[in-house]
């Protein structure tokens, strides 16, 4: 329960970057990978992302659990794409090269194979940086960094409020759920679906209604301390930008620019080896 957000404290270059830098770089990198479908660029991002793991001193063992989740997700999605649209690649690349003699709807084509491997590459280009961000950014610094990149401090503060109250809400949920189960509310697979839904609402209603009281209390306490009266506020977790921060943001911005250039050069988002 304590390690909900997978933050791993380790002395490394990436840990020393400020939270704002990591957030900006992660966003720019993700946008770069989202924008293009250029195979070479995605492959480069995947390799670079994995290299960064070594820089950040994050080991495979640390993220194996999360990688497992991602792989399951990826496999389900890949299969679904093939089931729903086995000719999607042909539509995108505008040619049709059958790999076998068979030519039905589900016949494997080179284009579909290429499209689906690009789809997988797209994941592997973004997942490593997001995992790295998750592992190297302390959640409370995250709220401070939101304010740093220009988000209104009132909204950044509600992010840190959420982080502060997640463990409390979780604890309260467990207490209410155990108390209800002791009174015979059945939540497991033995009960029917509608019964389970009703049981869930029996637990959720006291949880949420008591949270409404909590909102009142916290809002009053903040009001009394004059929250929101001034234009700015300082953050305990905020740090100053150093040279390395500017440098990593610059590199990420260049990656995004490269993605845009490639889209222009390829006349579209796809790199097409078939024509």
């Amino acid at each position: 329960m304590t390690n909900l957000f997978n933050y791993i404290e380790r002395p490394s270059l990436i840990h020393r970057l400020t939270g704002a830098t990591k957030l900006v770089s992660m966003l720019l990198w993700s946008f770069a990978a989202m924008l293009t479908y250029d195979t070479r660029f995605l492959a480069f991002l995947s390799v670079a992302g994995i290299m960064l793991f070594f820089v950040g001193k994050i080991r495979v063992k640390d993220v194996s659990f999360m990688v497992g989740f991602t792989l399951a997700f990826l496999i389900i999605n890949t299969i679904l794409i093939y089931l729903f649209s086995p000719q999607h690649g042909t539509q995108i690349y505008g040619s049709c090269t059958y790999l076998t003699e068979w030519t039905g709807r589900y016949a494997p084509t080179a284009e579909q194979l290429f499209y689906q491997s690009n789809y997988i590459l797209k994941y592997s280009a973004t997942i490593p940086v997001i995992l790295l961000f998750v592992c190297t950014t302390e959640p409370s610094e995250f709220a401070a960094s939101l304010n740093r990149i220009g988000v209104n401090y009132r909204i950044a503060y509600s992010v840190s409020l959420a982080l502060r109250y997640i463990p409390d809400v979780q604890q309260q949920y467990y207490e209410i759920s155990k108390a209800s189960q002791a009174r015979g509310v059945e939540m497991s697979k033995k009960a029917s679906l509608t019964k389970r839904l009703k049981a869930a609402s029996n637990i959720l209603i006291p949880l949420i209604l008591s949270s409404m009281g909590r909102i009142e209390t916290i809002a009053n306490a903040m009001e009394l301390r004059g929250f929101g009266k001034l234009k700015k506020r300082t953050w305990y977790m905020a740090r100053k930008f150093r040279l390395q921060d500017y440098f990593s943001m610059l590199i990420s911005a260049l990656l995004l620019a490269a993605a845009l250039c490639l889209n222009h050069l390829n006349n579209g988002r796809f790199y097409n080896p078939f024509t």
Partner: protein
Amino acid sequence: MKKLSVKTIVAIGIGAALFFVLGRFVAIPSPVPNTNITTQYGLLAFIAAVFGPIAGVLAGLIGHFFIDFSYGWGIWWSWVIASGVFGLAMGIIARKLRISEGEFSGKDIAFFNIEQFAAHLISWVVVAPVLDILIYSEPANKVFIQGLISAISNSITTAIIGTLLCLAYAKAIPKKGSLKEED
């Protein structure tokens, strides 16, 4: 933008925390293997209906972002944004309701449920699939069917949990003019 009230800020924070805990730990196992029925949209509909569209959109965005963040399967911007859109749509239309004044009766229940169904359709059958197609170039029929399934299952849970929540909350609040001078 109008200055956010302190209460809205706190409601966003607590709402996002609740959304996270429900999404992460209160999944009801469904008959289909490996798919869970999510309960958090009933809560989000309620928060949006009581605290307004800004609270709805931000609680949805922040809560969903943290769910993806803690699972580590990558951040699915298309679905995170769709959660925000659901909160926004609920908040905008629900301004007609007066839940925080203790009023939630037969007509309001019907209105609330038609509204939440429409908001789910907008988020999961329009916003999420269109973003999936734009970002990931996924085949259209796949993402629309995925979206339709989530819209239906989410609106069923919202209908049950959201309605019960609004009823319980409205009942706990004394109605306007409920006090009378003694003769």
